[in-house]
């Protein structure tokens, strides 16, 4: 864990592959939930309880856990879609624990960190052509001329394995895998330092998933971008991450090098997750009901 505290105005460290891209300390998110549909009573629901982690340049942190464990809440706080109740987030040395106050600040944050959402069916504008959607990001974030932008759009599409013809296609004419690659190209267009991938390969077919995972590995090797990779699929986590954090009901129950977490887990919950993955010789077990009774 880095000694940086997010509140201190840290200097931007972009050199050296070991410089931390993301530093998160004691992150906490509490939602006030109405006790009933009509009542005025509330209770606090703790979605994330004190998560701390850092990701270095070119590194990948995996976040695993079941639905409701707080994975997506962490992603949304990193992007700035949710405000942390307490704790600090800094990306390439810049604090982003409080919402951006100016458009300029919001743009700057957009250049630092981009996200790819789980569902490519709802995260793309259905009326915007693929090329335009990437072009828009380039126009907002980079000072490029019209022709350079167009060239760059095609480059980005090519990078994710889409053709020039597809740049004028609407999302509805693309398959799920192709849409997800558009979403990745759009995120890459801003040339961010950090890419958050929230279940980004979960909905893809096995053969497409392999293509996208290889692509992500290539991009990271080439650009030293840092990834925060959220998934419930432990095999995918093994393939792409070097550090892993296991969440259970908002609490970090285990954290460390991916190989260690998956090969010699120390927490019962991690063991349970691993034992539930179908593998050769695996027989389905009544995990839940055994625990209940």
């Amino acid at each position, binding site marked *: 864990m880095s000694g940086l505290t997010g509140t201190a105005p840290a200097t931007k460290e972009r050199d050296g592959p070991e410089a931390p891209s993301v530093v998160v300390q004691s992150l906490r998110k509490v939602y006030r939930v109405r006790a009933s549909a009509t009542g005025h009573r509330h209770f606090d629901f703790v979605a994330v309880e004190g998560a701390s982690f850092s990701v270095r340049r070119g590194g990948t942190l995996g976040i695993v856990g079941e639905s409701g464990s707080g994975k997506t809440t962490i992603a949304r706080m990193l992007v700035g879609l949710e405000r942390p109740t307490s704790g600090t987030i800094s990306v390439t040395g810049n604090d982003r624990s409080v919402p951006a106050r100016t458009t300029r600040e919001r743009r700057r944050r957009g250049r630092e960190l981009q996200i790819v959402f789980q569902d490519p069916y709802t995260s793309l504008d259905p009326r915007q052509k693929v090329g335009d959607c990437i072009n828009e990001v380039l126009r907002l974030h980079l000072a490029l001329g019209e022709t350079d932008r167009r060239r760059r759009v095609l480059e980005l599409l090519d990078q994710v394995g889409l053709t020039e013809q597809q740049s004028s296609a609407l999302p509805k004419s693309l398959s799920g895998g192709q849409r997800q690659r558009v979403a990745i190209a759009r995120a890459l267009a801003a040339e961010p330092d950090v890419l958050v991938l929230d279940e980004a390969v979960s909905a893809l077919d096995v*053969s497409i998933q392999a293509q996208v995972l290889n692509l992500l590995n290539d991009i990271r090797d080439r650009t030293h971008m840092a990834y925060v990779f959220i998934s419930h699929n432990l*095999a995918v986590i093994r393939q792409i991450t070097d550090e892993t954090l296991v969440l259970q009901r908002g609490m970090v129950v285990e954290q460390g090098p991916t190989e260690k977490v998956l090969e010699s887990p120390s927490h019962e919950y991690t063991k349970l997750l691993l034992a539930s993955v179908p593998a050769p010789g695996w027989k*389905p077990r*009544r995990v*839940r009901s055994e625990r209940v009774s």
Partner: protein
Amino acid sequence: MTPLLEIDHLSVELVIERRYQRVLQDVSLTLERAQVVALVGESGSGKSMTARSVMNLLPPGGKMSGRIAFDGTPLLGARRRDWQRFRSAHAGMIFQDPRASISPVHRIGDFLTEALVRNNGVRREEALERAASLLARIGIDDAGRRMRQYPHELSGGMLQRMMIASVLLTGPELILADEPTTALDVTTQADVVAILDDLRRERGMAMLFITHDLELAAAISDRIAVMYAGYVVESATPAQLHSRPMHPYTAALLHSRPHLHERTARLPQIPGRPLSAFEAPSGCPFQNRCPYVMPECTEILPPSDEVDGRIVRCLRARELELGADPSAMAAAVAAPSGDQPVTPGAAGAVE
């Protein structure tokens, strides 16, 4: 003895973009009593349509040809009422998304007992009692409260348990399960699959289990049929399939998955994307993505060939040595010796 379910040379056409297009091609499958067959494949391969054809639940305008018979009685061409009787008395279907297939405005208890009361003429009180005891059996303690709740009050995993309970309650001989655990967490999946498997065994029910997860298919089934572009390209026992896949597509599927206990520098990729039957070229449907393609593959549709009790649709099945599933290496039985293995791209290997 007649098999419980026979599907012979089933082809299905659906209206897609205003014209009839093939989604299933010459599919043949047999299910014995109390047997589990898993259908595995990627999107558009025809897994779901196969199950829906058996239930006559195709989208409007869907056309079937071939033969489907249940317990020796042909279903295809049967009257509407006979299909209805088959669906209500002999078969049950579990869908992928319980929230989309259970009515949100009825209580769970009514959903569970509807079939018993309507089709089997069981009194409502007795039906509720039976439902409660089955829920207790699958590890849901407060059955009474659960049955008074509405679907929105239940988690996805709990709702899927309810869907399974509703199917098991009527005691069908055949269960069609269409990706029943895909939307669930791994721990919930393990539990739901265990419940399904336990009760099915106990009651001697046969099951057609649709999944895209080869490991899950291996854990639950007696036989796996791999589908691609509307065809069954290979079918074998899980052990055979994992230790020695014979169709290049099966092998590619096994190899392109990431593995839990091993990180690969680069996952072997299958180029291109999965195709639907109507997009597939003439000849072998996998030719464009196959590393072992040869000129004949573009001309001849490989017939369903029987090799060592397995079915495979590949012209080169007998000569290719495709290698085991890497994660099953330890458990794998040594491939039968005799034939010389052929390396990919070996020219002139075919007589």
